[in-house]
């Protein structure tokens, strides 16, 4: 790890002052930033410790929604009574990720801003446009089992590794941000971005901006939801493919359905056109296959990850079935029903 200056922010104003400039990084739980600093991928000259800021709680919103503080840990969030009762999809996705120890340290703001797990991004001996713009992409034509099948570009085929964010995408969360130019709200779909020709930009946060909270809209998806995560071992592993489904059924027909995919793109993957194909339909395997095809249209493997295209299709159909039946995937018993 390189040497750095340490600043402990006592207020948002102090955090924004000390967080200005390309060489500063906000430090929350540290489970991603410290890891990347040990690999010399991140070499900040100033660490701004934001853990003393008053962003640790959850607050009810006037519209009936719930605001999750950026510094609530992933464990506090998943086990919060309001989240367990009203947003079980989010609780399930968080508990599918990392390990209990990591979830006790990892924060909601850090989870959104965690970087890709692309092997080349981590290995400073290899080219990587995300880490060192202009050097090329080691993963294209290389080892790419965990890489993207959708929305990739000739400069980067990395995926966003979060489980939590896949549920937040399905739930239509909003990200609350503050920065040198004031506060703003970012719709979840606009928070993360596709790599395009600027793969070093993971999201649309501007320089010096800080996430303060995540707002969950009040919609009730407690009866028909699931988070299905497929990976190389049953626990403590990142998703190869994951699916979050939030659904509403009325009189045996699908009144609303949200489908978000993880492990397949540089951002949580949603397509409203795919969701529209099953609206007002009765749940059926055929309808779910149509939705899966629309969601995965244009999917293409990079060699080692070709299997993901078929895996994602089957996972979407299975997850829609679980949600419609009201039998969400258990994160303890990993058998897929």
């Amino acid at each position: 790890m390189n040497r750095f200056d340490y600043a402990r922010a006592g207020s948002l104003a102090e955090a924004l002052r000390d967080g200005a400039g390309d060489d500063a990084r906000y430090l929350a739980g540290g489970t991603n930033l410290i890891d990347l600093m040990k690999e010399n991928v991140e070499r900040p000259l100033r660490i701004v410790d934001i853990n003393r800021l008053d962003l640790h709680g959850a607050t009810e919103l006037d519209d009936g929604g719930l605001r999750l503080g950026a510094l609530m840990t992933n464990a506090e969030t998943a086990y919060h009574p309001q989240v367990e009762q009203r947003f079980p999809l989010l609780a399930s996705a968080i508990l599918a990720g990392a390990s209990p120890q990591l979830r006790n340290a990892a924060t909601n703001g850090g989870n959104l801003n965690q970087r890709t797990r692309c092997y080349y991004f981590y290995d400073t001996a290899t080219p990587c446009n995300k880490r060192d713009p202009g050097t090329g992409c080691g993963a294209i034509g290389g080892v790419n089992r965990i890489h993207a099948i959708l929305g990739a570009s000739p400069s980067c085929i990395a995926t966003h590794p979060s489980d939590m964010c896949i549920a937040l995408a399905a739930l239509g969360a909003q990200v609350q941000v503050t920065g040198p130019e004031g506060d703003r709200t970012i719709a979840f779909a606009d928070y993360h971005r596709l790599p395009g020709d600027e793969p070093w930009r993971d999201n649309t946060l501007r320089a010096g901006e800080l996430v303060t909270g995540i707002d969950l809209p009040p919609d009730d998806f407690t009866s028909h939801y699931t988070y299905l995560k497929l990976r190389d071992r049953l626990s403590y592993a990142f998703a190869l493919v994951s699916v979050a489904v939030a659904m509403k059924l009325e009189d045996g027909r699908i009144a609303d359905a949200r489908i978000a995919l993880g492990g397949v793109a540089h951002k949580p993957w949603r397509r409203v056109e795919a969701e529209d194909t099953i609206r007002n339909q009765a749940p059926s395997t055929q309808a779910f296959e149509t939705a899966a095809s629309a969601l995965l249209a244009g999917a293409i493997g990079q060699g080692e990850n070709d299997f993901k295209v078929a895996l994602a299709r089957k996972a979407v159909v299975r997850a829609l079935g679980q949600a419609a039946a009201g039998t969400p995937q258990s994160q303890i018993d990993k058998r897929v029903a």
Partner: protein
Amino acid sequence: MPTLTASRPLPAEASRPIDTIPITLTVNGSVRRLQVEPWTTLLDLLRDKLDLTGTKKGCDHGQCGACTVLIDGRRINSCLTLAVVRDGCAITTIEGMATGADLHPLQAAFIEHDAFQCGYCTPGQICSAQGLINEGRATSRDDVRELMSGNLCRCGAYTNITDAVMDVLQAEPAR
């Protein structure tokens, strides 16, 4: 001089002086006032400065759980947290589990069930199991297996580790 709010200009990295920062930790019940370099992880502080080498370094990247300690009763990976960030916290390591000559119930259960071979993962397993008990979320064997998945055991003692943790869980219901 240590600075907690850095508003001074950033010096060139290579020529940086080593500033240390004062912190106070309660480690296994005793208050320790320390001067730490900000880049020191809690794991390195425990092992290299406080001579508490029970906590192990397996991967140093959050991938194995050997470094698990309790911070204010909650289990975390000490390799991925900076000591300076934990200023004011109470840390419990494996050295703080027993009461005098009396083994902690988890230590006794690990011996009883032969829940280790080489023992390298064991301090982390035991601290993690105490964290699991504190969390009060596990009742079944499947729960224990899933909620202990953050602790790898290269020797593959998982079945016996689960037995040992189940014994203590059942003797001491969730708080």
